[in-house]
């Protein structure tokens, strides 16, 4: 991001970066940076909080009034995600005992996913598998957990991309079934700690690690702090 800022300034554009990493702005002499101590992935701080987002933008644009750079200012409010709790919501009861719990769960959550699509008009599921293919993708993870070689998974893309699709399916639908207020990392904690799908993906990552799979293959199936 700081590299792009330098390239754009050299081309005749003025730039402002909202950064969660103060040390990068210092090391790279980024032309104008607003250091916002927010969780990674949330540069404007709070979803569904237009006032807060506008405050961040106004603080960022205020840096444009400075006559010389580099400019580095701190946004006065910080947000921490390290102590957030998993989102609270009821998960569906077992319906088909012949299916693995993760597959049964994903099928039962499909209507919540469809509601999320209707509300948002968009989905980020589809890197490798579609929403229709989520249950069969989880069946493949079950087989890997049961001993099938992970490197013969047969997906049309890396396993981490498939895990991304499954996690995205869950993290998009969760806002349709929870009454919890948004908390940074709350959906991630719900997925890996409360859902059968998240537990299964993490189990597979640990099995791959034990079997000596390349670190990039297993490490990217879950956040680094979980390994």
């Amino acid at each position, binding site marked *: 991001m700081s*590299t*792009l800022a*330098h390239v*754009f*300034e*050299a*081309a*005749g*554009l*003025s*730039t402002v*970066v*909202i*950064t*969660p*990493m103060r*040390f990068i702005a210092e*090391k*790279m*002499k980024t*032309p104008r940076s607003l250091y916002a101590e927010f*969780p*990674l*992935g*949330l*540069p*404007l701080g709070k*979803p569904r909080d*237009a006032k807060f*987002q*506008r405050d961040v*933008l106004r603080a960022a*644009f205020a840096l*444009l009034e400075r006559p010389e*750079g*580099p400019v580095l200012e701190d946004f006065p409010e910080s947000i921490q*995600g*390290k102590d957030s709790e998993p989102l609270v919501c009821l998960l569906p009861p077992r319906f088909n005992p012949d299916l693995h719990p993760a597959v049964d769960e994903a099928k039962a959550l499909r209507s919540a996913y469809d509601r*999320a699509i209707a509300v948002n008009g*968009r*989905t*980020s*599921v589809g*890197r490798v598998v579609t929403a229709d293919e989520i249950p069969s993708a989880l069946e493949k993870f079950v087989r890997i957990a049961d001993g099938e070689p992970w490197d013969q998974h047969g997906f049309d893309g*890396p396993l981490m*991309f498939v*895990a991304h699709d499954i*996690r*995205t399916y869950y*993290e998009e639908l969760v*806002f349709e079934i929870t009454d919890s207020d*948004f908390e940074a*990392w*709350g*959906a*991630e*904690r719900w997925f890996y700690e409360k859902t059968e799908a998240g537990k299964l993906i993490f189990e597979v990552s640990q099995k791959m690690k034990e079997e000596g799979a390349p670190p990039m293959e297993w490490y*990217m*199936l879950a*956040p680094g702090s979980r390994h």
Partner: protein
Amino acid sequence: MPDNDQLMKDTVMKMPVPSFDDPAFTEPPPLQEARVAIVTTAALSRKGGVSNWQLQDFHFETLPSDARDLELGHVSPNFDRSGFHADINVVYPIDRLEELAAESVIGSVASNHYAFAGNQSDSVSELRLDTGPACAAQMLKDEVDVVLLTPV
């Protein structure tokens, strides 16, 4: 569980960064007259484009100002992705820019905005020499004055 954000910051802190000798610092017009574009590293795309992004990817996507059917292509598990799912503005504050333009806080919102992937090469030479200047040229053609950069 350890703080994943801090873990990532500690990791990035150890990585080498490119240096820019005598960096440019372009003076903007008054904010009330400035045309503003967003550039993000969230690997966004329009509907159906999420599979365009690869593991190491140097291209950028052009996002028309009226597009809201945006998909998140950044596959790293090490950031909160649910915020974007709940509200694209927390990463890509397009509605907030429209409001600021309506209030005459900024001059106007650019016709197009841009998304890069966060996973660039160590040298970032592609950004410096190829895609970065190409993106800048598109923005200058659209008479953009100010670029708001939102990393993910």
